[in-house]
């Protein structure tokens, strides 16, 4: 079974702090993703990475950055936390797939519920 592990289930930080959320997958997946989930908005993509040291912005990258130094690890960084970043953060990974028949599902971790006070 695919295992995606997020380092913390619950995290409380203060406004202005630099916050690190860590994610590790054990299936040698090329692609990794960070989403946030908010009520009524579903899941929204923050950043993704399709290779080590590669990253691309998702739909809501403002206020966030990411780091992928190793294939199995993808970190999300809140440079200066703000209260509107209080949310559930979900990490996912997937195999790289070629073409229309090569699509691969994403597998998710259990999430980190982050509160910014």
């Amino acid at each position, binding site marked *: 079974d695919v295992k*995606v592990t997020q380092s913390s*289930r619950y995290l409380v930080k203060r406004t202005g702090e630099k916050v690190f959320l860590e994610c590790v997958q054990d299936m040698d997946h090329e*692609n990794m*993703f960070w*989403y946030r989930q908010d009520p*009524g*908005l*579903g*899941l*929204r*993509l923050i950043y*993704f990475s*399709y290779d080590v040291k590669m990253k*691309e912005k*998702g739909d809501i990258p403002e206020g966030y950055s990411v780091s992928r130094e190793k294939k199995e690890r993808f970190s999300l960084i809140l440079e200066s936390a703000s209260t509107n970043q209080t949310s559930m953060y*979900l990490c*996912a990974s*997937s*195999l*790289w*797939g*070629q*073409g*229309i*028949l*090569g*699509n*691969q*599902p*994403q*597998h*998710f*971790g*259990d*999430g980190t519920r982050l509160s910014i006070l």
Partner: protein
Amino acid sequence: DQQVKQNSPSLSVQEGRISILNCDYTNSMFDYFLWYKKYPAEGPTFLISISSIKDKNEDGRFTVFLNKSAKHLSLHIVPSQPGDSAVYFCAASLMLRGSSNTGKLIFGQGTTLQVKP
């Protein structure tokens, strides 16, 4: 701009009956569609997917139907069980770079299914 929409926030069905969850999308470039199930305090779990070159995919009690002309996707659960009570997300994949597919997903807002014993 919500490209993937689940217009019913909630659905309640009796155990043993059919559950039908619906999803609409606007972007005709989507080529892969998925359904995820999410319990509280857990990450989304992949359920079933369908490629845009098919109109039906079945896996046990779960069947996904795709109507490309209507840009409509549905998930049928037969028979429904109390353990199916969860939030269901539909998602669509957008091919990003040439013929490769990084697996970026765009999610709907979710539908909460309650199956009553």
